[in-house]
Structures are given as structure tokens and as C-alpha cells.
């Protein structure tokens, strides 16, 4: 099925902005909680785990939406290198929004912690407990988060570039505001 509207499908747009807010919030919550010894540490961690799992669920839905409704093509005159960068960064973002929660879940499992999403809701372990796996996964969680943040910054700069400099409808295709 080809996209002829020049827009992302409505579910894709809704998921995009909802998850953008959630993921950006998660990045700030994550670095904020591990750099705090105050009550902030406790309540941020209480938000972090269920919100992260919600992102995992939504990411799977989003991937399905992405495969079901192809996005509008990039402008034909976009230089090859920029097209390549756009596609690579989009797939990297999809990969990271799935990998981050899985690594978070796996690292708590490897650390022997009960994976509690609330006072009483516990997810099963998805990785055998062990100190080596824990340490590797815990560091991976940090490094992938940094990669996600940098990819997000580049993604946001590129969107602004399309919207403000090129004015080529790429930003509009996600905002659903067609330019006359």
C-alpha cells in the first residue's frame, strides 16, 4: 500500500507525539533519579519502570502501524546522504525504544530483583540472575540511553531543519498541517 496523502497515518502521528513525550520524559527521569539521593529518587523510580514497560508495549504497536501504513516518501530532491541518514536514524530510534525497556527489564532480572511495576504488580524475570550479566546490562542501559538521547537531538534538529530551512513538508507530514 502506497502513501498518497503526504501525511503519516493518524495512528502513526498520535503514537509519534505521545511516545516522543514519554521517551523524552524517561530519559530525564532516568538520569535524574540515578543522580539523586532525595525522595525524588524514590518517586522517579516508581514512575520509571511502569512508564518504560508502557513504552515497550506502545513500541510494538507502533512497529505494526509502521508496517501497515507506509510513511509518506521523503522529498525526491533530498540528497542521498540525508535520505540515508533519515532512514538509518528512524530505524535506530525504533530499535532503541524496544531495546531500552527490554534491557531495563533484563537487568533487574539479572540483578535478582523482583521487577515490580507497582506495589503489587510483578513481572516475571526474563534473564537468569548473575552479577556479570547484571553489570553488563546495567551499563548497556546507560550507554543505550545516551545513544537514544543523542539520536533524539539529531532527529529534532533535522525536523527543525526540514520545517524551517527546507520547508519541504517533512515536518508537516507528522504534524498534519499541510502547507498551502
Amino acid at each position, binding site marked *: 500500500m502506497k502513501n498518497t496523502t503526504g501525511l503519516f497515518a493518524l495512528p502513526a502521528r498520535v503514537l509519534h507525539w505521545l511516545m516522543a513525550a514519554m521517551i523524552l520524559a524517561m*530519559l530525564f527521569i532516568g538520569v535524574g*533519579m540515578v543522580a539523586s539521593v532525595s525522595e525524588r529518587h*524514590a518517586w522517579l523510580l516508581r514512575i520509571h519502570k511502569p512508564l518504560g514497560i508502557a513504552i515497550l508495549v506502545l513500541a510494538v504497536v507502533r512497529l505494526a502501524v509502521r508496517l501497515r501504513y507506509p510513511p509518506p516518501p521523503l522529498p525526491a530532491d533530498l540528497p542521498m546522504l540525508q535520505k540515508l541518514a533519515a532512514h538509518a536514524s528512524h530505524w535506530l530510534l525504533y530499535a532503541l525504544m524496544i531495546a531500552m525497556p527490554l534491557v531495563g527489564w533484563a537487568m533487574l532480572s539479572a540483578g535478582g530483583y*523482583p521487577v515490580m511495576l507497582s506495589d503489587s504488580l510483578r513481572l516475571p524475570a526474563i534473564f537468569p540472575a548473575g552479577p556479570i550479566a547484571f*553489570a553488563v546490562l546495567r551499563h548497556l542501559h546507560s550507554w543505550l540511553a545516551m545513544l537514544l538521547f543523542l539520536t533524539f537531538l539529531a532527529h*529534532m534538529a533535522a525536523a527543525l531543519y526540514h520545517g524551517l530551512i527546507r520547508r519541504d513538508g*517533512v515536518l508537516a507530514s507528522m504534524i498534519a498541517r499541510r502547507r498551502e
Partner: protein
Amino acid sequence: MPESPTPKKRPRHLGAWVLIAAVPAACALAFGYVGGWLAPQRLTPKRLVDQFEANAGVHPGYRRNHAKGVCVAGYFQSSGQAAPYSMAQVFASGQRTPVVGRFAIPGSNPYAPDNSVPIRSMALRFTQANGQQWRTGMNSMPVFPVATPQAFYAQLQAQQPDPATGKPDPKKVATFFAAHPETAAFRAWAKTAKPSASFATESYWSLDAFVFTGSDGLRHAVRWRMVPQSADDDSAAPAADADYLAADLRQRLSHGPLRWKLEVTLANPGDPTDDATKAWPADRQTVDAGTLVVESEQAQDSGPCRDINYDPTVLPSGIQPSDDPLLPARSAAYADSYLRRTSEEAHLPGTAALPAKAQPEARP
């Protein structure tokens, strides 16, 4: 249709380029501030744990505090008497819950002699049948010296050994205590406390307050204490052996299990839950929640307690943290310490190598 782009350099694009650079830059700055990299004055878990290392050196693979200890295992037999106050499965009548624990002495040096401090600690992980866990770390003293992580950090800084003498500077320690009158109750206790000859004869206090929730939804502020059922024979600690506590434990367990009663104290309205330096009045209602039975011990280098982080905020439904500011600080610092020691166990690049074999070395 997308319009044809003609990105000609016109002055009005200048503002656009500035925006394209400024928005991500502002985002990165905010991230750096929230993450603490751009807020060097904030007390972070890393700075707390760095201070433990500054005071006692880095001992790869070991906990950054309570470094010297021994693993134990056993179970908790509930009496059912705490069940009306907390719906945690561990308190259900007749319930038996497996426990992996650890006895230790405070301090960051895993080779410190057992008589170097008058405090002993007990850490426990209860694994409930429903998969939820209760982790707790308790000390053998009725009050904690400080009420906040900031004061705890200041105390650690004051106790940092002077490079010239290898010992804390008494003037700095005195200055700290003068500036922190809340330490008075602890100091009064410490004056008369002496290092016990056994882990088995000590009481261990939660110190921090927690909140029990019953199945009726009612909340109760509590503290608890493990009360030893082994008689204190008041024997003096054998001065010759630096590791007498582990030897004593092994010897006692070879004759049979050791027991503690879990005594839960219910707060009266108004009792402080956010200040571990203040004991609650002695007349508060207490509940005998059941019996901890310790059956076996194992060296900490290879025992099951090694890779457990006894984070006191890992709690089953029915127990919650209180507003005690030490609790989130402990959770954050223990996680940092846990990551350092597991990274060392994993031989990750940039971490110090583990000692070839744990050997007691002559350290003051």
C-alpha cells in the same frame, strides 16, 4: 505536495539556523543539569560512595560499606500476629518464608578486625511464595547517628583518614559532632557499647520507619527489631583473632539453628517517621511477628548473599517506605555500590581487578 525547496541563504534563515542549534543545545543543557553533570554541588549516590572509597580505599568486589561479612540462610516462621497490620504474605499466619541473609560489621574495609567497631549488622532477603521480596538491612544499635544523607556525607568526610596519620583527624570529628547535635543519642549509646563476641546475641534495629498496610487498607507507621533468642554470655571478644565473629557463628551453627524474634513496633500518631536519630517511646505497642531461624552460613566470597543488594526499599505489597530521607539515599547509594562491585566481578574494563584470593592483610 511538498513544495520545491530552495534553501537560498537569506538573512531570515539566520534566525532559523540559530533556533535549530539552540533548541537541541538547550535540551542537552537541561539533560546535563538533571543528570547532575552540570550540578557539581548536588549530593549524588556517586559522591557518597566515592567518599566511602576515599575513607578506606577501593576493595574490588566488596561492598563499599559493611564490607566484611558472612552469608547465612534459613527461614522466617510467621506467627500471624502482624497480619492484621500488613497484608504482606510473609506475615500470613503459619507462613514459612525462605531467607538469604548476611551478617556484617560497618566500615568499608573487608579486612577490618571484628573488634574495631561496636556495631554489627543483619541483612535479610525474604522471598515470598508470590515472588515478591522483602529486603532489609538492620544495625545493632537503637538509633542512627544522623537523620539525613547530607549529614551522613558530612560525617563520612569528617572521618576521612588524615594522610599523615592514617587516622581520622579528631578535630574534624569533634567539629562534625558539635555541628550535629542530633548525633547525641547515638553517641550516648556508643559510649557504653562494646564489640560483641557474637552475631547471635545482638538485637538488630530497622532504625528507619516503614509503613505497613493491612488488607483493610489502613496504614500503620512501624519500625522493627530482631531480638536474639541466644543468651548473651557476656564473654569478651577474643582479642587475638581478628575474624572471631565468623568463627563464632560457624561454631554455634554446628550445634543447631539460631533464632531471633521479629518485634514490630507500631507508632503512635505524631511519632517521628522521618528521623532515625529519635527512638520512639518505650511504651509503644509491639507485635511479635514471628521467628527468624538461621540454619547455615557460607563465606561471602562464594555465598548466595554476595550478589544481593540489600536495598531496604525492595518491599512486598503490604510494606512501604516511610518519609524517612535516609531510605531513598540508601536505595540510591546501595545501587551504586552494587554496580561497582558487580562490574568488578565481571572484570569490565576500567574496573579494578579482584584480589587473587581474599587474604586478611595487616591494616589498621
